[in-house]
């Protein structure tokens, strides 16, 4: 395994910080869900916001996207977010079914 030159050099410390924040956010999620602090729809929104924060930390720091060039960041993130949002079209139908009360 030979040495490969790197474009950036960051310390170990920030990885421990990110790991700690991820664990704390997970704990917050569990407490919120277990205490059932919010109504289901509000709960879903809160959990999704926390999960998106967690995934941003993982993508940015652990997967090093923060240190890639702008073209890489934009192409990767815009593509995946746009495609995932398109899938959300189906939720209109799910809400329609529950309001109709189909058995």
């Amino acid at each position, binding site marked *: *395994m*030979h*040495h*490969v*030159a*790197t474009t950036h050099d960051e310390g*170990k410390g920030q*990885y*421990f910080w990110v*790991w700690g924040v*991820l*664990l704390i956010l*997970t*704990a917050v*999620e*569990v407490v*919120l*869900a*277990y205490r*059932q602090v919010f109504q*289901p729809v509000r*709960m*879903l929104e809160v*959990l*999704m916001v*926390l*999960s998106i924060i*967690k*995934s941003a930390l*993982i*993508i940015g*720091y*652990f*997967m*090093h996207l923060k240190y*890639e*060039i702008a*073209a*890489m960041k934009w*192409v*990767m993130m815009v*593509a*995946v977010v746009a*495609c*995932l949002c398109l*899938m*959300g079209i*189906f*939720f209109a*139908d*799910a*809400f329609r*079914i*529950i309001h109709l009360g*189909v*058995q």
Partner: protein
Amino acid sequence: MSDVAVQHGIAGAYEPSLFGTYSKKIGMWLFLLSDSLTFGALLFAYSYGRISNPDWPTPFGKASIANATIMTGCLLSSSLTMVLGVLAARRGDFRWTRWWIFATMVFGSAFIVLHAKEWSGLIGEGMTPFKNPWAPNVPQFGGTFFTLTGMHMLHVTIGVIYLGVVALRKKFLPVLLALWLIVWLVTPADSIFHIAVHVLLVGAVVAAVILFLKPKDYDAHDVEIAGLYWHFVDLVWMFIFPLVYLMSTRV
């Protein structure tokens, strides 16, 4: 071949990449994008059922949530050890890279074992892909749950094999075959994992073919790319955990 053609650090020989990085990494990112759409579809399918069924079962009690929280902790910690492994590989410290990758594999395996125990518990209560004991009129709970978590478990298993190959190369093959045999022998014949363990055998065959066709010394770039895959598996769980478990808690 391509490794010879694209010599990193030699300026001027080739036009620089549009994305400012080496092509193997772009390839892995593109794979992960397509994979995130696969998981996206499965997560959306589960959520669609969850929204459109008022009688959606909530079988995850205190023990189940505690178990899933420990599993989340395992995956998050495995991401930390992986990123430390990538850092060690960049320093050229092969010994520490190996140790960090081993730690990552241990956390990943712990995740698989805990998840398998949980699956066995649910199956023991009478849950199948086609029916569940808690809500007889919502048969799709089993199907969407097992497909989503099964797909994720498969990704974690492939990740552990991938890391093993990067860390140990050909020496990992006997370890993998031994694992396959041990799990096959210790799981009861009627358990789903008695059959599912053959994934390890398929993995060993695929790894052997790759190692035979392209024997090479894996460098820091390969460790970083394996790390990208591993973090992605962790990332997907960050959505499965709240959507599947936390939204279906039984208090």
